[in-house]
């Protein structure tokens, strides 16, 4: 292990990156594009549900109920239907998501003390939005019913009717329930994984394809030094990306950063080291750039995007897939990121995740160096 030789490889790799403008642009532009998309444009938060109203009762009571919906910030009454066909058409064309139908005998039932029914038709294709919308509508109807009962009791000379039990819901760590706050920290893991898999997976395969590997072999550089040298170049790129994400996330998108920046940097280094080593391992396992690239995306980008809990919660996956996520390093890193950003916890909570990331990095690095040595020998 010689520091000078490692540095020489690193310098050569840096020159490669700087001269290949497109890789450099990809490496620096991609985080920006993804941050902008996720920060500004993409959100899972449901409000202003487009709603169509079909009032078959036409009484002050039915209008009162409809007013309750149009006054809520969760609903936006965009159209008034005159028949079920109108509802059909609008839902088929995805112009509306929710239809409120007040039946003909609504006010009669209500005044007679029978159970008055409101019909809600919801487009369930987007099940996530739909189930949140169902929750909103049912809560609204329930609280409206209580209000009516209270009024009725006051009229009959009884006291005002209060809600017997009130839920006091307090959301910890992300008070306003903004999806950006949990997506942006997780995005750091995805971006680092893309850099690692897309750039690193090609680096050794390229040396083989272009025939420069033989030249490298004739120099006194050793496999470990070669891996370390190549790693350090991409490592610098990765850390730059991480800092870009951190700064833009915190200062432009106001994502809360409650924990220690130092711990964040430290864990990013651990993760990045492992991810880059994995890229090198993929690259050393094949001599074709196309195959290396395919292996890289299938084994690192896809799991980081899908199986890490970045967007899709691991708890909702089938048990077998949940078991698979335990060997996905991004899973641990996404947990670390979210916990540091939003919960502000430290090593006392995250030691298990950090230990895994450390072991993963060490093992994959050893494998990568050994694989390269085998290939060379």
């Amino acid at each position, binding site marked *: 292990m010689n520091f000078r030789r490692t540095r020489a490889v690193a310098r050569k790799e840096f020159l490669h990156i700087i001269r290949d403008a497109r890789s450099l642009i990809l490496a620096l532009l*991609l985080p920006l*594009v*993804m941050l902008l998309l996720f920060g*500004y444009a*993409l959100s899972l*938060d*449901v409000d*202003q549900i487009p709603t169509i109203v079909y009032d078959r009762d036409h009484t002050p009571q039915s209008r009162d109920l409809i007013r309750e919906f149009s006054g809520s910030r969760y609903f936006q009454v965009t159209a008034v239907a005159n028949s079920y066909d109108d509802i059909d058409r609008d839902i088929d064309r995805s112009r509306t998501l929710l239809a409120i139908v007040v039946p003909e005998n609504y006010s009669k039932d*209500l005044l*007679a*003390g029978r159970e008055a*029914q*409101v019909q*809600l*038709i919801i487009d*369930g*294709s987007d*099940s*996530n939005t739909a*189930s*949140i919308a*169902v*929750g909103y*509508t*049912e*809560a609204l*109807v*329930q609280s*409206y019913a*209580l209000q009516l009962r209270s009024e009725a009791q006051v009229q009959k000379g*009884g006291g005002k*009717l*209060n809600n*017997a*039990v*009130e*839920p*006091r819901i307090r*959301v*910890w*760590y992300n008070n306003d*329930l*903004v*999806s950006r*706050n*949990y997506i942006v920290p997780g995005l750091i893991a995805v971006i680092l994984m893309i850099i690692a898999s*897309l750039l690193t997976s*090609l680096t050794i395969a390229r040396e083989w394809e272009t025939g420069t590997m033989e030249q490298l072999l004739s120099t006194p550089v050793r496999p470990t030094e070669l891996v370390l040298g190549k790693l350090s170049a991409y490592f610098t790129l990765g850390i730059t990306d991480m800092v870009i994400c951190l700064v833009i996330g915190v200062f432009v998108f106001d994502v809360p950063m409650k924990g220690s920046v130092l711990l964040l940097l430290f864990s990013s280094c651990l993760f990045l080291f492992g991810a880059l080593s994995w890229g090198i391992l993929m690259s050393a396992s094949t001599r074709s750039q*196309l*195959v290396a690239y395919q292996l890289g995306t*299938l084994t690192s980008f*896809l799991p980081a995007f*899908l*199986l890490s809990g970045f*967007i*899709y*919660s691991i*708890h*909702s996956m089938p048990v077998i897939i949940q078991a698979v996520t335990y060997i996905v390093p991004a899973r641990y890193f996404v947990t670390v990121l979210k*916990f540091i950003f939003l919960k502000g916890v430290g090593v006392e909570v995250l030691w298990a995740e950090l230990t895994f990331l450390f072991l993963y990095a060490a093992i994959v690095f050893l494998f990568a160096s050994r694989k390269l040595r085998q290939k060379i020998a």
Partner: protein
Amino acid sequence: MRERLKVIIRKELIQALREPRMRVMLILPPIIQLIVFGYAANLDVDMSLIAWMDRDATQESRELLSNFEGSGRFQIVATPQRDAEMQHLLDHGDVDAVVRVLPGFARDVERGRTTSVQVLVDGTNSNTASIVSSNAGQAIARYSNEVNLRRQRDKLVGRTMSTGGPLRPNIPRVDARTRVWFNADLRSRNYFVPGVVVNIITLITLMLTAMAIVREKEIGTMEQLMVTPIQSIELMLGKTLPFALVGLFDTALAVTVALVLFHIPFRGHVWVLLLGACVFLMTSLGAGLFISTVSRTQQQAMMSTFLFFQPFFLLSGFTFPIRNMPPAVQYLTYLNPVRYFLEIVRGVFLKGSGVSVLWPQLVALAIIGASVLTLSALRFHKKLD
């Protein structure tokens, strides 16, 4: 011209299918992607893990607990006694929420005062958190309603008894009857898997077209093609038509897996889907052609494909509803072909929509496809000269 075109299509097909590794690449990655996506891409919260912190320990608080358990949406995994334990559970992410019943709960319920139940939700994942809050709110509201009705009846009975009048529990009640269309069980898999079909066909056709042309450039066989009497339009068609076939084949494969493995409802007509796929292929093949004209090496082609594909994919409404985007971005998505194809595929799968509903999307795709193809063809032509 027919003859030459046939020859180049044959050459392209042989080249694509000759290598065993390439044959595997055409079939395996789409299936792996579909399966992983199908199982993992899931935003449903069926069962949330909660901690129950009962500081009251009375008949009433247990009644509330059985309301939570009875809803089938909560699993009580811990019963912390002290605040520190609760903090620990939330910090470690062991539970999605803690329900805290404070001392005096039963007393307040009995005396008819408004009392409250605290629900502390872990907001780290805002989507899960808002579903959990809404479920908890509903369970509490149900209990509250029961208590309320009981109270009101007692009062009415008391009053009618004292006045001696007839018993008339004239309480206004409103009930919501919710019906869910197209996806009655609200399974997010039904929404995502058709989307994955779109994702796979886009990526495969884009990548293969771009790579096939750049490879000829890289290994120098492009010059050989140029000295043959083949014309650029024939070369272009010959380079894209085989991949159109591959794209259609992969679509059929993906649809089959979606139906057989994931039991996604397919309510529309196959030919509407096929029509949509054919029109969409104009765009994706055209874009692949375009990438090939701006890339010199396969690596550049791969990276451009990736940079190009990501924003289109994310802004298509695949996971993140277009409705939630800022208005300016919503207008931009009208230029996004993936958006239209996604609407077609989901419409055919879930809503059983036909051409009468989907024609705006088809027309938009045709216009985008024609412009992209023309633009790439012009560039391609210039490059050859």
